[in-house]
């Protein structure tokens, strides 16, 4: 069994779905820093996905610092990152903009959006 839940949905690149599922598991405390992360082979076998797809997802997670490679030990969950850099914040602002566009497009009010964000925020906060 994999240490993070994932139901693969049709229509989105599978490697992106794996990356997202792992991020979600890390922030909600399901995956603890320092714990072992399954191999490419195990991820591929468990999810019945192409090993290249699993490899790609794990590569992205390592690049983003969510996973770390320790020679002789294998891949482990990384330490939580320090405060985001200016560049990261700028990239993130673009994502917030998308969210706001989508919300306005659905005629949501600001307070409704805030409530929705709060609910998700609390749901995903480390237990």
């Amino acid at each position, binding site marked *: 069994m994999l240490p993070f839940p994932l139901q*693969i*949905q*049709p*229509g*989105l*690149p*599978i*490697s992106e779905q794996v990356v997202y599922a792992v991020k979600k598991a890390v922030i909600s405390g399901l995956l603890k820093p320092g714990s072992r992360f399954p191999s490419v*082979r195990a991820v*591929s*076998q468990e*999810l*019945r*996905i*192409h*090993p*290249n*797809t699993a*490899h*790609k997802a794990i*590569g992205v997670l390592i690049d983003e610092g969510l996973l770390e490679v320790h020679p002789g030990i294998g891949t482990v969950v990384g330490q939580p990152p320090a405060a985001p850099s200016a560049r990261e914040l700028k990239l993130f602002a673009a994502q917030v903009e*998308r969210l706001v*566009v*989508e919300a306005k*497009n*659905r*005629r949501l009010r600001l307070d409704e959006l805030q409530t929705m964000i709060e609910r998700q925020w609390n749901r995903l906060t480390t237990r």
Partner: protein
Amino acid sequence: MESSDNSLTMNPVIEIEKMSCRFGNVEAVRNLTLEVPSGSVYAFLGTNGAGKTTTIKTLLNLLQPTAGTARVFGVDSTRLGPPELARIGYVSENQQLPEKLTVQQMIDYCRALYANWDDALCRRLVERFALPMNRPIRGFSRGMKTKAALLVSLAYRPELLLMDEPFAGLDPLVRDDLVQGMLELSEQENWTVFISSHDIDEVERLADHVGMIDNGVLTLSESSDSLRTRFRRVDAIFDEGPPPTPDLFKDALSSEISGLSVRWIENHYTDDEALGARIQSHLPNCKAWSSSPLALRDAFVALTRAQRATPPAL
């Protein structure tokens, strides 16, 4: 980002070039060109009778193209002989198995034929597939027969696995066992799978390349990531006023307008910004719209329909 791009620089395992196969008046495959990169799992999709089996049979030199060429491992398909065939595994929907033999007897027989036979892998597969070893294959269910066929095709560690509708009519548990069995091979360095299916759901997760064939003609061949990205279902609602200009659907696979709402399938979606700009210019009275990912199955159906509505110029 595209890891599959690395494999494209390597020699493709399968190269089909302008291949046609004619049986009397019927052209089963028409001017087919496609490449299967080394290391990929290539899903070859098409409805029944689309030309999938014919294509696979030419790759085994069971059939010869009437025009064009097919190459496997760089060797012309009409010259494929025992040395190349020993590197190819083949499992088909209507697999011929030695019905009188038991699985054990079939394994003993096949083991002698292949220098690369891997006893340890064979044992793992026997265990995974939970096959009765000492009963004649004659009495096996369809699923058990397919497992037995896959077992003896995997145990010699073929570099290329050709599978013709292996999952047709099998229950989900058996399919899952077969996929797991195929993945047993993925640890080896050279591992390419070419798998035909009429049902994309069966192969959507595993395949990293997808080709679609309809009436003998290839409608697309690309990486599944690119496919998943470029198709989008778009729903829009607009206020009273002029309906969308046809230009909005210039690149759409299908479109439906019903009252003040319109739905279509984008064929070359990149991002919501570009899409929003197009909607703005072709449907200024648009009130709200949203785009959502499309399952490959729906893309497949829409593509096939669009293709049939406008046959390609020859």
